């Protein structure tokens, strides 16, 4: 009994930071409709800044002052990010802003590395709160008790702000109809900035508060991000009580998990999330999202046509040039080109889902990594020949996509996106924690291709044929009846259903197909590297694909491939330098601001303006 109570208390104490970060994310999303990927980064900054301030400021006042100041400082940083990075792109298509926030993640990672160095920092103990108290014989850190007391106060203050003050009323009004709030004389721009700053400050506060328990390290941004997404989705987007309850559930669950099921703590969190969403699709306290409800409908997409002769010749020339690469390129160039080709196929498969189907998946790495792991597991545990294992990679990934899609497709929009992310993380945590089968963090090694493919050049041709073939096939399907139906379901579900198209089934098939193609890329990947690690299933891998699709141009057929080739190429060049993330992050932010239609879309518009291309249809 004592242990039970103690664990309950620890869980509740841990819920504090999680709640603060989650409520910040939820607030920002509610008002600005931005899924702030960088929220974990602000949490991390809060921890680092708090750490530095604690070194400088003395005593108990200094300690608590440092936490408060860290929150404020992060709020100010958030405000700057909002004004400099997000404000120029509010009019861009929905979800495009999250690309910019991804750029912010990279920038913050390197800045933190520059300022605080690569080593984990051990958080200082809170003055006067060292040691433990005994409750029913069980030791409980005094700091946990302090957190237990503080969190409800923060939650109450936040609740008061949102429900009782004018600012809170405006925030809630803007969550529902921001255009109307503007028409009533409220300066939306500042409301957005204010809310973004507040949300970031909460994240910073959470980061600083957990210092004595967890310290500060460079991985904490992504680590918290997943948990926060889970909390926000379980609680319901935009609901403060929901965020609090969900944070408590997740934290308590985690503490008990560590004791009773140490092998599956991470898995547990996602299982709970899936269970909640199956019963309540919009979270415990969430409200149903109606697409287009918030008046953010972008420019309609243009009709697509199968490539004309010119383009076909161009593509053929490109493929020929790639085929000739081994004649003059070094081994290294071929390895690099293999990487890029595989990544392009991966990106193209996500683009199919996103561009044609309007389905934003935050967890597409599940099928890439999933395919890779299927092959690797077969080779490792069943001595399956490479050819067969390779074939089973896309099939395994496709099957995973069918199961996951079946559940996720009950939802739409950002809930769908979050749920796909949760499943990807579930798969990742399975692989990560089920060490005896998957090798856990150590990965699976010696997954080499069959002898006839073992040379760099041979494998390069193998990858070339399958990647280009896969990409061409994806494009071909876009022009088939099925591709039309997918676009029809996206453009007008009402009309599609009224003319007999089973839109859910169409989406289901598309999801499975995209998963299969990602699995194919995964299969190519694992045999090119000879090994596989859990990070191929990770959230960052999913985001990589998402980012390049957006940057390449969602609304253009070749956006995924161009974005993939460009960014993978740039990344491979930049990773040689120490602070490549900084450069990459700034590059992403730059592209987002100057090319809101993506690289391909913006180039096309420029070409049209210059008269090089005929306009799609003139304004008649």
């Amino acid at each position, binding site marked *: 009994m004592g242990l039970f109570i103690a664990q309950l208390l620890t869980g509740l104490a841990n819920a504090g930071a999680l709640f603060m970060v989650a409520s910040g994310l939820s607030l920002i999303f509610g008002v600005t409709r931005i899924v702030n990927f960088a929220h974990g980064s602000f949490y991390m900054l809060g921890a680092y800044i708090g750490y530095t301030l604690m070194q400088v400021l003395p005593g108990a006042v200094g300690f608590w002052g440092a936490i408060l100041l860290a929150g404020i400082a992060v709020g100010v940083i958030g405000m700057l990010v909002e004004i400099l990075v997000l404000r120029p792109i509010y009019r861009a298509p929905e979800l495009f802003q999250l690309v910019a926030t991804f750029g912010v993640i990279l920038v913050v990672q390197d800045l933190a590395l520059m300022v605080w160095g690569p080593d984990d920092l051990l958080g200082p103990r809170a003055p006067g709160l060292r040691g433990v108290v005994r409750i029913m014989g069980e030791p409980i850190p005094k700091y946990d008790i302090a957190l237990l007391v503080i969190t409800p106060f923060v939650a109450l203050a936040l609740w008061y702000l949102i429900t009782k003050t004018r600012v809170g009323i405006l925030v809630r009004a803007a969550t529902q109809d921001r255009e109307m709030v503007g028409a009533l004389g409220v300066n939306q721009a500042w409301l957005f900035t204010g809310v973004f700053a507040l949300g970031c400050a909460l994240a910073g506060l959470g980061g600083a508060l957990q210092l004595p328990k967890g310290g500060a390290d460079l991985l904490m941004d992504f680590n918290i991000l997943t948990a926060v997404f889970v909390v926000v989705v379980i609680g319901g987007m935009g609901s403060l009580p929901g965020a609090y309850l969900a944070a408590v559930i997740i934290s308590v669950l985690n503490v008990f998990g560590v004791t009773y099921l140490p092998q599956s703590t991470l898995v547990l969190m996602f299982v709970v999330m899936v269970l909640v969403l199956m019963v309540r699709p919009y979270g415990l306290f969430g409200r149903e999202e109606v697409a287009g409800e918030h008046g953010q409908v972008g420019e*309609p*997409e*243009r*009709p*697509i*046509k*199968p490539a004309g002769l010119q383009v076909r010749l161009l593509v053929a020339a490109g493929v020929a040039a790639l085929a000739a690469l081994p004649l003059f390129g070094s081994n290294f160039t071929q390895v690099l080109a293999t990487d890029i080709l595989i990544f392009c196929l991966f990106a193209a498969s996500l683009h199919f889902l996103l561009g044609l189907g309007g389905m934003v998946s935050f967890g597409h790495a599940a099928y890439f990594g999933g395919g890779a792991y299927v092959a690797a597991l077969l080779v490792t545990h069943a001595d399956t020949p490479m050819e067969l294992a390779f074939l089973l990679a896309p099939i395994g990934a496709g099957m995973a996509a069918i199961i996951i899609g079946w559940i996720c497709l009950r939802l739409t929009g950002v809930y769908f996106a979050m749920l796909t992310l949760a499943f990807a993380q579930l798969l990742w945590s399975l692989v990560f924690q089920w060490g005896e089968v998957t090798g856990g963090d150590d990965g699976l090694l010696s997954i080499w291709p069959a002898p006839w493919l073992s040379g760099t050049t041979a494998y390069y041709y193998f990858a070339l044929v399958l990647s280009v073939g896969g990409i061409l096939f994806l494009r*071909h*399907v876009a*022009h*088939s*009846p*099925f*591709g*039309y*139906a997918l*676009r*029809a379901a*996206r*453009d*007008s579900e*009402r*009309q*599609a*259903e*009224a*003319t*007999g*198209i*089973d839109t859910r089934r*169409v989406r289901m*098939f598309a999801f499975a*197909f995209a998963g299969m193609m990602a699995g194919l890329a995964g299969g190519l990947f694992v045999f090119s590297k000879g090994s596989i690690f859990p990070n191929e299933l990770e959230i960052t891998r999913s985001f990589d694909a998402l980012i390049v699709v957006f940057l390449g141009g969602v609304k253009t057929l070749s956006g995924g491939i161009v974005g993939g080739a460009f960014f993978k190429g740039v990344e491979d060049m930049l990773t040689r330098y120490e602070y490549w993330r900084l450069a990459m992050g700034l590059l992403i932010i730059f592209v987002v601001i100057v090319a809101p239609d993506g690289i391909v879309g913006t180039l096309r518009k420029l070409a049209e303006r210059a008269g090089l291309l005929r306009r*799609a*249809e003139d*304004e*008649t």
Partner: protein
Amino acid sequence: MSVVLETRGLTKAFGGLVAVNDVSFKLQKGELLALIGPNGAGKSTCFNMLMGQLKPTGGRVFLMGEDITGKSPRDIWRRGVGRTFQITATYASMTVIENVQMALLSHNRQVFRALPFAHRMHRARALELLGMVGMEAQAERHCAVLAYGDLKRLELAIALAHEPTLLLMDEPTAGMAPRERIALMQLTADIVRDQGVSVLFTEHDMDVVFAHAHRIMVLNRGELIADGSVDQIRNDPRVQEVYLGGGTVFKSEDEAADA
């Protein structure tokens, strides 16, 4: 004459509010039947129940004698019911002809084919359908730039792709210019005559209703208060009171103005 559509005691309640109450009617083959009534009388609710978007809380719907109550929109479409929407619903990213080709692909159960080029399929038939509604000249235009009246005509072509026995048209002429309205309804009347299609439509423009409907039903507060020929409805005192009479609110001023 054979009965195409029949409702018996169709009822829909939202919580305590009864939106449609005990509505029974029959629609004969080749008939152009208008459903009129004030805003909020339950016309759209009625339509959505016929098309399967809403499940009735009471009563049955029969199509060619077969009970279709509570079937999904897709099932009802399969059985030969086409519809057009009050707020147009088309595929904005496609061209005009592709919109119709999509409907034809669904009609021919080819939605899940992933290998052939869709733009080559059913082109001739699609052009023929566009011809029926006078849209063949705009076949290659981007749907997103069409004028409102043209979108309505395109919707009609999409609905006709399935060779429906019954067409449900929800305010087909809303938002169109007077001349366009007459043209669209004339077109609909021609289709009814030539193809033996039956049509049930809702409409606010009485000129359109009186000129083209074979029969009129009047819905008020969820109840069917009249059902008859154009002349019967025009002269029905109850209908004049709740709908045609222009409301009672500003009557005195109207009379003054009209005098």
